[in-house]
């Protein structure tokens, strides 16, 4: 119990430092670009592959169900409805947590252990402003874009399944999306809003784990595992909470 309180206090202090660091922050474009690269470009392939297969599986299952009711033309609508709002932000969040969260925690932990953070302090440089914020900001920017990529790839995967593999007419596949009950402002954008929160959560959790890493290489292993666990669990919890607010 006492331990829990201490961790909580440490975490709140971390958040405080993070907010205080805002006043020192000057964005260094080079650093920002490389962080965007690490968070975004390098996760893109993973996101696309997952989106492809999740889209295919979803289309495959819905195809069977809808065929039974003779409602095949509604396929794209069902797939989009299931994916855009919930599955795509959540799966993207989980993948980013695994892909970027662990990297961040390990990187920061490594920096902490190698006294890099202290060296920066010797230069008078606040590590929250120059190490944490660029990474956090990169995640905030990149996650919604990854969600968009996920949406597009998964709907194309469903299209591939229905049209290319099962000979549905392409027109019939696309029309219900425009004229049905899938709305861009609602379904696609809500997914993106969620993604911003997920990105922030993953960033804060992973950086926190990295910044308070324990000694030794087991400390780094522990930090990156914790980062993934906390961020993935958090993504699922946040998803529920946000869903309550967004509808």
């Amino acid at each position, binding site marked *: 119990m006492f331990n829990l309180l201490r961790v909580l206090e440490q975490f709140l202090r971390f958040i405080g430092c993070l907010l205080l660091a805002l006043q020192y922050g000057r964005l260094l474009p080079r650093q920002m*670009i490389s962080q965007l690269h690490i968070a975004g470009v390098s996760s893109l392939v993973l996101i696309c592959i997952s989106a492809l297969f999740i889209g295919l599986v979803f289309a495959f299952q819905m195809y069977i169900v809808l065929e039974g009711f003779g409602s095949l033309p509604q396929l794209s609508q069902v797939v989009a409805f299931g994916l855009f709002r919930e599955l795509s932000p959540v799966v993207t969040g989980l993948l980013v947590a695994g892909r970027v969260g662990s990297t961040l925690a390990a990187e920061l932990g490594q920096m902490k252990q190698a006294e890099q953070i202290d060296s920066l302090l010797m230069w008078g440089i606040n590590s929250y402003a120059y190490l944490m914020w660029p990474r956090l900001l990169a995640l905030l920017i990149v996650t919604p874009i990854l969600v968009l990529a996920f949406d597009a790839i998964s709907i194309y995967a469903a299209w591939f399944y229905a049209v290319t593999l099962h000979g549905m007419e392409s027109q019939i596949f696309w029309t219900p999306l425009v004229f049905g009950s899938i709305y861009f402002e609602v379904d696609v954008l809500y997914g993106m809003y969620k993604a911003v929160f997920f990105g922030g959560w993953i960033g804060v959790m992973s950086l926190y784990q990295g910044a308070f890493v324990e000694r030794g290489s087991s400390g780094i292993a522990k930090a990156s595992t914790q980062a993934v666990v906390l961020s993935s669990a958090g993504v699922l919890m946040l998803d529920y909470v946000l869903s309550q607010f967004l509808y």
Partner: protein
Amino acid sequence: MFKKRWMDLSVGSFFILGLSVFFFLSSITGQVSDEKLGAYQLRARFDDVSGLVNRALVRISGVTVGQVNDIVIVPDTYSAMVTLTIFDPKLKIPADSTIGVYTEGILGSKYLSIMPGFSDTFLRKGDEILRTNSAVVLENLFSKLLLFFGDK
């Protein structure tokens, strides 16, 4: 420096890709305001729309051409006023068309079906379709049948 340029390039294309996907998605999905698509709305008055819900489909010859937007009660006649959207602005509907509430299968969901008339004048935005067939309610049908057989 090669590494630097490669990184700039990939991050740049990442954003361009993101932007184009954004517009792609906005073009393949519907908008809350269908204005830009030129969709237009019609109205129809029914005695009974039991089972019809918002977003139910509107069909002509079995092809989906629109959806139900709104169902309200008309205070003085107690009939149901249905507002529906026809998606395609080029699809003209004759003024003497008939619209009815039908059921998908025996127990399926309700939808509206328009049987086009032969008039040369066409309905415009906000017009009312005057000829309507109300929903067939199974209970009413049964009670009529019972009365019919009861008389014998």
